[in-house]
């Protein structure tokens, strides 16, 4: 049962006769009378059990984008029902204006549309549907909650997709598909160019050079159908917040951009999120189907507060890849990672694959290092510098193992990783 503001108003109106009567007992009689009237009204209200509800939500929505969920309310009874319904979702689903009034004749149905703007990635769940059936006097009514499960999957934002067009343009240049070069496409001489210092002597086409006065080298189109494997570290260090989002969000952005780029380049991409077990994976799909599958897989990845199992990561990579591939490890360069076996794992992977280790830098720590205002700032600068030295030491050891190290601020990580991929592609190291 619930009461409405009308009950309160009716109770307050009693103040007027109370001025004349001047008896405390009158106040009690009035208020108890009003409550009794409200109880009677609630008793006369229809039972909420005659209402049926059904939810329908879109399967997925990208973070920061708006959508709407529908709630169908149907009157299965034999009397007219009016009231209010609340379509409850968890707060991060961003359901605003989720209360709807309805008035339904017997057998009638209505669809209530609740706009949603999710504020967090992952599966956003619906809670109960609460219906309030008003009594004939509008003083009170019956309230009941109905279980109606529904889920809305919120995909990663993929804000880094704004970097995609420029990277695709560069990819086409590397590929020899730009408009300028397409003019001469099909002619054999277009794949030959003059030798410049620094070119591999093995690329010199001696026969062509003999025909011409200058030395010509053969140029090759970059390889297609290469394997790219992205491993996201979802262990404890990925939970730390850098700026407004955890590190894992920057890693996901980078993984999405790199996957989009690599699948356009004709490479086969697979993604794995790992800490001690594999949390999510996207593999075996190529071309345009890749991105939806990947976004779906990464939408529910959350950091786990555990230490990563690096030997298992190495075993996973070895088992998934049969030929030489590019392995991108999205993790955190930290002194503790050395003890955790990260170096051994990188060494093991780097023996048979090209490895890029990408790490998110913290702008706050960089700002700390520049602080000079007081002694507290100086010590903070010292501590930040010490951290940077340790990170450099780890990076140096990783580089010694033959892997590439990338550190960038959260917003710069995705383009930096994409650029490194294009560099590798252009130099034919993939």
């Amino acid at each position: 049962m619930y009461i409405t503001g009308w009950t309160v108003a009716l109770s307050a109106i009693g103040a007027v006769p109370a001025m004349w009567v001047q008896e405390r007992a009158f106040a009690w009689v009035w208020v108890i009378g009003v409550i009794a009237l409200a109880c009677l009204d609630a008793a006369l209200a229809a039972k909420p059990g005659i209402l049926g509800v059904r939810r329908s939500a879109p399967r997925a929505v990208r973070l920061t984008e708006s959508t709407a969920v529908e709630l169908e309310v149907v009157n299965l009874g034999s009397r007219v029902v009016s009231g209010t319904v609340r379509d409850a979702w968890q707060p991060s689903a961003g359901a605003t204006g989720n209360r709807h009034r309805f008035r339904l004749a017997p057998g009638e149905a209505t669809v209530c549309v609740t706009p949603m703007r999710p504020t967090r990635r992952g599966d956003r769940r619906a809670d109960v549907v609460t219906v309030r059936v008003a009594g004939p006097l509008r003083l009170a009514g019956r309230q009941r909650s109905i279980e109606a499960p529904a889920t809305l999957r919120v995909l990663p934002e993929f804000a880094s997709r704004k970097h995609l067009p420029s990277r695709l343009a560069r990819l086409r240049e590397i590929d020899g598909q730009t408009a300028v070069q397409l003019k001469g496409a099909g002619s054999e001489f277009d794949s030959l160019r003059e030798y410049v210092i620094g070119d591999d002597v093995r690329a010199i086409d001696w026969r062509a050079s003999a025909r011409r006065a200058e030395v010509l080298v053969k140029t090759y189109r970059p390889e297609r159908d290469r394997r790219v494997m992205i491993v996201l570290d979802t262990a404890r260090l990925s939970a730390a917040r850098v700026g407004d989002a955890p590190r894992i969000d920057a890693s996901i952005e980078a993984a999405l951009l790199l996957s989009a780029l690599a699948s356009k380049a004709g490479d086969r991409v697979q993604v794995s999120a790992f800490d001690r077990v594999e949390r999510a994976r996207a593999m075996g799909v190529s071309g345009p189907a890749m991105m939806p599958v990947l976004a779906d897989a990464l939408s529910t990845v959350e950091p786990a507060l555990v230490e990563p199992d690096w030997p298992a990561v190495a075993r996973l990579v070895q088992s998934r890849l049969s030929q030489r591939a590019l392995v991108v490890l999205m993790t955190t360069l930290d002194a503790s990672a050395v003890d955790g076996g990260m170096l051994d794992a990188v060494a093991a992977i780097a023996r048979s694959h090209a490895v890029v280790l990408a790490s998110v830098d913290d702008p706050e720590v960089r700002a700390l290092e520049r602080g000079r205002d007081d002694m507290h700032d100086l010590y903070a600068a010292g501590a930040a510098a010490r951290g940077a030295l340790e990170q450099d030491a780890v990076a140096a050891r990783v580089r010694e193992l033959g892997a590439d190290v990338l550190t960038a601020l959260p917003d710069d990580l995705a383009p930096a990783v994409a650029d490194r991929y294009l560099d590798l592609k252009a130099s034919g190291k993939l």
Partner: protein
Amino acid sequence: MSTASVDSARTRPAPSSPGFSRADDDAGLVTRARRRPVVLSAAALFVVLIVTLIWTSRPEDYTPLSTDNATPSGTRALAQVLRAQGVDVRQIGTMADARIDSPGTTTLAVAGTEPMAEYQIDALIEYPGDLVLIDPSQSVVDRIAPALSVEPSLDAAPVAAACEDPDAVAAESVRVADTGLAGDPGPDGMLCFPNDYGSHAYAVVDDGDRRVTLIASWPLVTNEHLAEDGNAALALRALGRHETVVWYVGDLFDPSTLTWSDGDGDGDNGADGAVPPTEIEANPDFLPPGTGSAVYLLALTALVAAWWRARRFGPLVREPLPVIVRASEATRGRARLYRRSRASGRATAALRATAAARMARRLGVPRAAGRTGLVPAVARAANRDESDVDRILYGAPPTDDSTMMSIIQELDTLESEVHRP
């Protein structure tokens, strides 16, 4: 309650397809009682108990000399005996509540006049009916019999009436306890129950129009002592002269004064020129008379409003929140450790190393070159002395905060001077 507009909802005939969730039908009271008999009967018992307690309870009164006070210091016994004798005893909380209709047939009993203000005593003296003053203060006694004084009494042996007042004679003997009266009661007055030291327990001043009884030895009306000696006889006779007794206990927090209506039958109380205070004078209340009950009803309405707002439209929804730890926390924690242990050397060494690495990168000095390779390069780039550069970059570690500050300052200056060659 923010409700989305109805426009967003489309009404249409119900589809026949199933798949609708429905609320379980509410189990009736009988069903619920059958399912959980113990809980329901316990709840019912609890409600009955609470109602009974509220019904039977009355506010406990511990005010000395109050007729509702059942403790030894109260006068409930006296009031009950008077009621049993057919006297209507009415206790008032404030003087303004008196509203005595007929002073000629009403005895006004005032216990403890010490807290009363001057204007209240004025009203008391002007009261045309019979007065019984229990434990009167000197300021009141002065207005009735100026030559009479109130004094403490230590002797508590029963003494005989020793006067002609019929009430006192009937009581035979009482004790002069706590306080007594001494001096001259005036031509109309009479002092009774003297002890060996000249203190009297009781005085009567009867000027023919009205009778003022002073019971100075107030313990004799209390529950504790009423049954002793002639206390009961004296108190009952003094208070039982008229059919109504209005009982007032002096209260420091009562600013109101006495009210009574002018005698409709006997007009002789206007003879002395005293104008009885009207109700408006007596109760300086600027609000309309019904305000109190209206506010009381609005207070109850506030409870109803609390119910209205407190009833949630469905349960709260749980949000599993992520852990929020800033990545810079570790660095800040390390900074606090440095500061607490005054590790200025360590902090400076780290800053020197990073600055050296940055300069080496800018100047293109390889990492392997070390101190011997970097110092000359930096000195050249900054146009400085080599020993100066060496002192700044690789000098002795600072031992206190001020040295650390100056070293870091020099380091920053040096770094700003180094430009790409």
